[in-house]
């Protein structure tokens, strides 16, 4: 529920309502839902799937993970229809963006326990929603938490917001904010729980989310960017790039010719049991990994540092020794090949334009030849014409729009996409779907 500036007051009137026992004004709530569905037709399915529960314990409006929407009669009474419409969309956004699942995941992974942390998650989730949900026919309720309330930039994900603020005395006004377990995963006392009436099962929830996403993808026309991005990823939450890069490098490094496998080069000792037969034996040949690093001005040192450390750790995990990992810094011209065992002090000089073709050439000229070439780049470069004679993994730093870079002087310039023969992992797209 969006924070309302008149928070303490609202709690007051909730108390009053308990005395007078006014019934929930369903008509007003439905009118608001109709307005919301008209303003955001792509969310209509999700809005209509919500089941309304009257509750005198909930301060305003909240949702649980079973797609029930709890509404306080007093809150509905005093809020104008157009603001209620905004609240509807806000609450359904929590569910569509799976904020409860993501909160649970965060709580598990980072050990965030306790109501304070859940409140932080609720605030972060509100920030993710509120920065682009209002306007365009939908009124912004008074005093909602927006990223700028917390002095944070807009357009980020709940996870990113969460790591960037703490609860403090200046947030006193937000302490009552409560969107229910649908927003932060923590069960509330007024909620009906999994066995309560008319909740949606996990499969039904997925089905509703899927239908909304499909509707957005089918008619992307007037849908805001944030929702389109959500629809793209809703059912394919991007994996953390570290794991993807690791898997790509590992599978490249353990392919034929490197890693651990059976070879007829030397017979197995088991052969003694079968005279006259040559059985293969298990041999291990640690893979040689060459990392070509794009040191052009467009890639930051921090990005490069983290990616390089990652590659080193991965190649060690596959059994490579540190001395088998080499590094080729490359901008317009490739410089010298550095073995990684010479400490961390590899000079990543450069700047200006990139031509990775020289980097590839340099890497492949090394003797013995590497088994895997890992390229870390932002992709603004020409690529080799033909497939190099070893496995290639490209770690791509995303730049600007998904369609590629935009050059002011040459608007038609589109850099080449990484070639088909390389396995491409986007680095820095670690965030789950929104």
């Amino acid at each position: 529920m969006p924070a309302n500036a008149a928070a303490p007051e609202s709690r007051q009137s909730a108390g009053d309502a308990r005395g007078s026992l006014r019934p929930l004004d369903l008509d007003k709530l439905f009118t608001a839902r109709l307005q919301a569905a008209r303003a955001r037709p792509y969310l209509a399915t999700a809005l209509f799937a919500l089941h309304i529960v009257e509750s005198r314990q909930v301060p305003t409006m909240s949702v649980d993970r079973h797609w029930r929407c709890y509404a306080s009669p007093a809150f509905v009474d005093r809020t104008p229809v157009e603001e209620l419409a905004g609240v509807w969309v806000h609450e359904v956004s929590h569910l569509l963006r799976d904020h409860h699942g993501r909160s649970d995941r965060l709580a598990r992974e980072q050990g965030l326990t306790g109501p304070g942390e859940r409140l932080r998650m609720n605030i972060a989730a509100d920030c993710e929603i509120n920065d682009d949900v209002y306007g365009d026919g939908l009124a912004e309720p008074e005093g909602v938490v927006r990223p700028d309330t917390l002095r944070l930039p807009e357009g980020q994900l709940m996870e990113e917001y969460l790591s960037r603020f703490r609860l403090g005395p200046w947030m006193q006004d937000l302490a009552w904010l409560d969107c229910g377990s649908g927003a932060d995963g923590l069960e509330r006392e007024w909620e009906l729980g999994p066995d309560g009436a008319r909740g949606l099962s996990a499969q039904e929830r997925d089905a509703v989310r899927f239908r909304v996403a499909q509707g957005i993808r089918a008619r992307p026309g007037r849908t805001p960017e944030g929702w389109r991005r959500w629809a793209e990823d809703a059912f394919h939450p991007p994996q953390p790039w570290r794991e993807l890069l690791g898997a790509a490098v590992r599978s490249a490094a353990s392919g034929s010719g490197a890693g651990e496998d059976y070879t007829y080069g030397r017979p197995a000792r088991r052969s003694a049991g079968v005279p006259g037969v040559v059985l293969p034996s298990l041999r291990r040949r640690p893979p040689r990994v060459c990392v070509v690093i794009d040191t052009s001005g467009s890639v930051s040192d921090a990005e490069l540092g983290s990616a390089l450390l990652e590659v080193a750790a991965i190649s060690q995990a596959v059994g490579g020794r540190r001395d088998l990992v080499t590094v080729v810094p490359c901008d317009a011209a490739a410089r010298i090949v550095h073995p990684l065992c010479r400490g961390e002090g590899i000079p990543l000089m450069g700047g200006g334009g990139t031509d990775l073709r020289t980097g590839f050439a340099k890497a492949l000229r090394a003797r013995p030849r590497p088994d895997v070439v890992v390229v870390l780049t932002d992709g603004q470069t020409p690529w080799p014409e033909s497939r190099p004679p070893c496995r290639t993994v490209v770690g791509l730093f995303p730049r600007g729009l998904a369609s590629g870079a935009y050059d002011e002087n040459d608007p038609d310039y589109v850099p080449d996409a990484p070639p088909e023969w390389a396995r491409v992992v986007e680095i820095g797209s670690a965030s789950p779907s929104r």
Partner: protein
Amino acid sequence: MATCTPFAPTTTEPAAQLDVAGDLLALLRDAGTEPRADVQLEALTLAVAADLPVLLWGEPGIGKTAALTQLAAALDLPLTTVIASVHEPSDFSGLPIVGDDPAAQGVPMAPPDWAVRLVRAGRGLLFLDELSTAPPAVQAALLRLVLERRIGALQLPPGVRIVAAANPRSSAADGWELSPPLANRFVHLQWAHDHEVVVRGLGGTWPRATLPRLDPRRLPEAVDFARRAVCGLLSARPTLVHRLPTNETRRGGPWPSPRSWEMTLHLIAFATAAGSSREVLSLLVRGTVGDGPGLELLASLDRMDLPDPEDVLADPAGAVLPERGDLRQAVLDGVVAAVRARPDRSRWDAAWSLLVRALETGAPDLVVVPATTLASLRQEDWDVPDTIERLAGVVSLSRRADQAAARTTAAAAKTGRRNAR
């Protein structure tokens, strides 16, 4: 020895000590069971019953073996577990045995003892554990076993069911991953532990899953349903028939192809005959053709559950409308679309009485759009039915929503489109 040491009294009863330890172990082992619905186990049972190769993805130590033991008991099959990573390729492709004259007789490939025992028993559950930590050559040999059911010269009888287990790509130390053709042959099931089950189990009560039983009377109906479901979807969405994974995240996972759709068809029939829930079917279908196509299939199954618009128009008074708002709206939209497709006076009237029924039994905002569309279908010589009076509430609701929208637009214009972006 004659000398007496302080330890002497205890050394006389080592056996007794072990007995005490045995008692303690027996006490620890003494755990009860309780019935509990287990969706993953149910899905696994159905896939195994359908004789499709299953691949369980799960971190080590989360009870895959325990689940297999339960499954074997439920299907009444002896369980054979083979840890792939401690075997050599020749253990699965057969060990060459040299005879007197290899040139004349060839070199027979002798199967290992467990395979011989399996074949002799004629039936059993073969569990290939730790597939992903085995070297590539072993995996290659194993895949032949899974897909062709051959070990050396031995053919596994049809009564043997095979389940494999692998660690997720991100945690597998040597990063085995399935090539798309191989991934397409498996039903992928993600195996996760349920926190509550583990805690209760360690406390002494393990769950006892009641596993699905196929109902012999429902078999023809199940096949018919499965065929309608898959063919209905694929004729409407031809691009779903075959779609290779292109994305790095989706590598090694399930994807749609005619082969995996056929597996899906089998699984739907099995789930229907067993009366399984949609949750179970969802796991199976998404594990066979992937999330996107799987969800589309499930969505079209949901639509198959909805009442047919023609039936509703024939008997609007007896129609049962779904409780859930979005499904109810789908039915109303479908009915209005049916009237639009074949407009005629009696159908138009029937649709109006259905809308009135919808208004009296559920949320009014759902009725607005169908009512507007239906009103626009009126032809000149059609009189407005009396029932329409009862929709007056809908009209005023719609008007109030319009007014609220107008207020929003006016306010936005006043604040100089502050929130436009």
